[in-house]
């Protein structure tokens, strides 16, 4: 209704420009009556307020993206105020609504999309002012063409600036593409303003924002320096937040992480661990060679090679990185040969820019503890091997002597403890000498057997007792009170050492625990005795006493199982290595006695079967890993005492017998077999499933010979196999009934 009245009051159409007609059609009559100047000023004000409102919305949403909510509220209020002011001109209300609402919605959509995409895209920003123009045109606001033309020129200018930088100083173009920070510096320089504060302003960090050149361009073009400054602060806060997140991530990785650029100096973020590892409070600007090669002499080949690497790396294309990475020193030792040695495993990753390596990220893991542990383990292993070698030497040179030493040393320590007394007391000189003698004797014997720990412990005991010698001699007595605790502890330590070497001695012996009961006798005498007893029993079969004597003679002539299996301990790893396999060898029941008939053939039989286990059973490590097995195979020998004779189990955790191949070979050779028990075919003469003959297996005569040898000794052999799980052999005396024999079952 009001609009129709206004239109009626307007001057005739023929005397007016199109714009005047448009304005008259929309402005309130009171406004028009105010005069032409006022009208023009008002029109100009409205148009600029439109700009202001639109861009206020834009920056409102920009602030929201930067999480600067305070500024967003202020700018939102400004936008609202502008809108309210325009709203006063009621004929512009449609313009206000269309323009500002469209600007707000467009800003929100574009900036939200940009935020989701991880940055503000320049193209989207360039388009942003265009969208409300289109909306205005659609709404019938014809002079929006002018606005659109101005904006198009502005957008075109931004494109030209982006592309050529022709309107910008050389320094600005040199750092193309344009970054917000460059714009800021240029802006300030151009206007002779105070330079930006160095503190907190790190141009390189701005680049990480993915900020569009267009933001800076827009701000510059519109002269919105204050908003720009606000944006800068917001962006810096965002950078700082991102940097903190990055530093947190680095710290969580527990690695020394830093990046260096083309000047080989540290730039950007680095981890807290890096400061710790490189013993520095700050890494900014530190040269990578100073960090990775502190104190390295110039001639250090590793140092020289890395210097050469640095010369090459920044000229390398991205696809050449793998070659470069292979030439990075994989490990570094800082402060080598000092107490502060740091072992680092080093990796490097490229940070690319336009397909070239722009920076290099160094990831160094502190392996010091790991290396030290490995060294300690190696030292312990070396010590253990030394001790075992000493034990083996002892065993080969007369085990009885060492057994006697262990017994006498234990007895002497017990006597030491008794002579010391249960509690501190006064001792005279002769008593001190007796105590001293105990320690000294054990020490001397320990030295003879190269038992360093025991020797050291006894030496400490001597030292403690020495303190008592003088007062005991000169004053007629000395109290053991001060040294009592230490001496008791020393005796306990000495006992622990003896227990340890006793166990090592047993472990090193092929006879196991049985070695402690062994005495040296003439083997011919034992053989003769057994023969004589057998003849005697033949004539006195009913005599229980004769049978007892026969049992004793048999036991005397028996050999511990460990004697037959002992030689395999060193052989298994070597034979496996020949076939590029790995195998552990386990023996249980080393001390079980094996009667002489079986003892004569058993070593050969076991050797053959174990070699077969390696050749046909145990898979190569890669295959075992594929099958989910331990890459190291296992072969286990178990000897159990039985009423008729020992029961011996030989098992492996390999592939099991190839029953299909055995069946095929049996058919080929015209041999009969029981379906489901094809395994038994391996005892047939000429049977071998091996494709090739080597020095470990494959001739097809071995298992037949094994069976014959065992049968000759009165024993039988059986076999079971499960495909993929392994094979198990079972040797038992022929007289043993099936019921008394435990069913074969895999124990590995």
């Amino acid at each position: 209704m009001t609009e129709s009245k206004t239109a009626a009051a307007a001057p005739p159409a023929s005397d007016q420009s199109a714009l005047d007609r448009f304005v008259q059609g929309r402005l309130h009559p009171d406004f028009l009556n105010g005069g032409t100047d006022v009208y023009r000023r008002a029109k100009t004000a409205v148009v600029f307020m439109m700009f202001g409102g639109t861009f206020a919305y834009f920056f409102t949403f920009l602030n929201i993206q930067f999480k600067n909510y305070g500024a967003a509220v202020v700018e939102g209020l400004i936008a609202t105020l502008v809108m309210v002011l325009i709203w006063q001109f009621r004929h512009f209300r449609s313009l206000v609504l269309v323009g500002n609402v469209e600007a707000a919605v467009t800003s929100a959509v574009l900036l939200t999309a940009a935020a989701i995409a991880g940055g503000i895209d320049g193209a989207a920003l360039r388009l942003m002012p265009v969208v409300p123009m289109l909306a205005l045109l659609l709404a019938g606001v014809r002079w929006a063409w002018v606005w659109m033309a101005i904006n198009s020129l502005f957008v075109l200018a931004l494109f030209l600036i982006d592309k050529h930088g022709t309107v910008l100083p050389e320094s600005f173009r040199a750092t193309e593409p344009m970054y917000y920070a460059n714009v800021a510096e240029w802006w300030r320089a151009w206007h002779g303003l105070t330079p930006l504060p160095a503190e907190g302003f790190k141009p390189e960090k701005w680049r990480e924002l993915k900020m569009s050149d267009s933001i800076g361009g827009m701000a510059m073009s519109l002269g919105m320096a204050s908003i720009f400054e606000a944006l800068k602060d917001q962006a810096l806060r965002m950078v700082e937040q991102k940097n903190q997140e990055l530093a947190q991530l680095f710290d969580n990785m527990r690695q020394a992480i830093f990046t260096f650029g083309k000047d080989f100096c540290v730039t950007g973020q680095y981890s807290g661990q890096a400061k710790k590892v490189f013993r520095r409070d700050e890494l900014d600007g530190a040269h990578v060679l100073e960090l990775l090669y502190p104190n390295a002499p110039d001639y250090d080949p590793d140092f020289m090679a890395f210097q050469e690497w640095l010369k090459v790396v920044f000229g390398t294309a991205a696809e050449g990185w793998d070659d470069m990475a292979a030439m990075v020193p994989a490990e570094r030792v800082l402060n080598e040969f000092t107490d502060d040695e740091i072992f680092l495993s080093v990796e490097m990753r490229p940070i690319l820019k336009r397909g070239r390596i722009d920076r290099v990220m160094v990831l160094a893991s502190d392996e010091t503890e790991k290396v030290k542990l490995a060294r300690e383990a190696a030292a312990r292993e070396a010590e253990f091997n030394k001790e075992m070698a000493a034990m083996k030497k002892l065993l080969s040179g007369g085990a009885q002597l060492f057994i006697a030493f262990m017994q006498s040393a234990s007895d002497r320590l017990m006597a030491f403890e008794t002579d010391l007394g249960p509690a501190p007391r006064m001792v005279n000189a002769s008593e001190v000498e007796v105590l001293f003698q105990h320690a000294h004797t054990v020490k001397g014997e320990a030295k003879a057997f190269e038992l360093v720990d025991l020797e050291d412990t006894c030496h400490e005991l001597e030292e403690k007792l020495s303190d008592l010698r003088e007062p005991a001699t000169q004053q007629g007595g000395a109290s053991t009170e001060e040294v009592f605790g230490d001496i008791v502890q020393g005796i306990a330590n000495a006992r622990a050492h003896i227990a340890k070497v006793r166990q090592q001695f047993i472990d090193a012996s092929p006879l196991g625990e049985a070695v402690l009961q062994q005495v040296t006798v003439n083997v011919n005498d034992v053989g003769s005795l057994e023969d004589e007893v057998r003849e005697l029993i033949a004539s006195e079969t009913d005599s229980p006493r004769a049978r007892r004597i026969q049992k004793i003679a048999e036991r005397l002539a028996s050999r511990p199982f460990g004697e037959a299996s002992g030689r395999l301990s060193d052989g298994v790893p070597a034979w496996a290595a020949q076939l590029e396999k790995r195998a552990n060898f386990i023996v249980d029941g080393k001390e079980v006695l094996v009667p002489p008939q079986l003892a004569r053939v058993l070593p050969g039989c076991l050797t053959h079967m174990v070699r077969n286990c390696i050749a046909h059973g145990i898979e190569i490590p890669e295959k075992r890993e594929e099958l989910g097995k331990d890459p190291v195979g296992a072969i286990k020998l178990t000897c159990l005492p039985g009423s008729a004779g020992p029961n011996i189990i030989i098992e492996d955790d390999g592939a099991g017998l190839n029953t299909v191949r055995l069946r095929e070979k049996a058919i080929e050779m015209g041999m009969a077999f029981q379906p489901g028990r094809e395994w038994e075919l391996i005892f047939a003469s000429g049977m071998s499933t091996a494709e090739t003959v080597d020095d470990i297996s494959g001739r097809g005569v071995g298992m037949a010979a094994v069976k014959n040898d065992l049968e000759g000794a009165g024993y039988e052999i059986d076999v079971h196999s499960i495909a993929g799980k392994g094979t198990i052999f079972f040797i038992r005396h022929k007289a043993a009934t099936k019921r008394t024999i435990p069913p074969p079952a895999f124990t590995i």
Partner: protein
Amino acid sequence: MAETGRILVIDDSITLLSKVKERLAKDGYEILTTTNAVANTALLKGCDLVIIDFHMPGYDGAQVLQALKKAAQQMGNEALMYLHTTDQAEAAGYKKHGFDGAFAMKGNFDALSKQVQAAFRMIKLRKMQKGG
């Protein structure tokens, strides 16, 4: 991982040559050894690295090095020549004698293995720089 490359080791000690050969061959290198480099410059053919003892009885180390360099140049061989020494001060002066580098800690074969790996990295990087 097995390395590749041919190395000529020159020393007056046959024992040391044998040990160096054993260790570096285990790493995968092809090792040639000689106690008389001057008479055996032909051994340089195809070598990537030459490891030289500077103090060999009856020889002037500098002259040996010059003879080797001349022979290598005639063959078109760009092998790197490294001084092998126990003396760190002497190692530091490798450039003065005309060597390309130095392997200190002579007698420590694990250290030598790592040093040789680094030297081969250097060789590869130099080839890369030349566009090889």
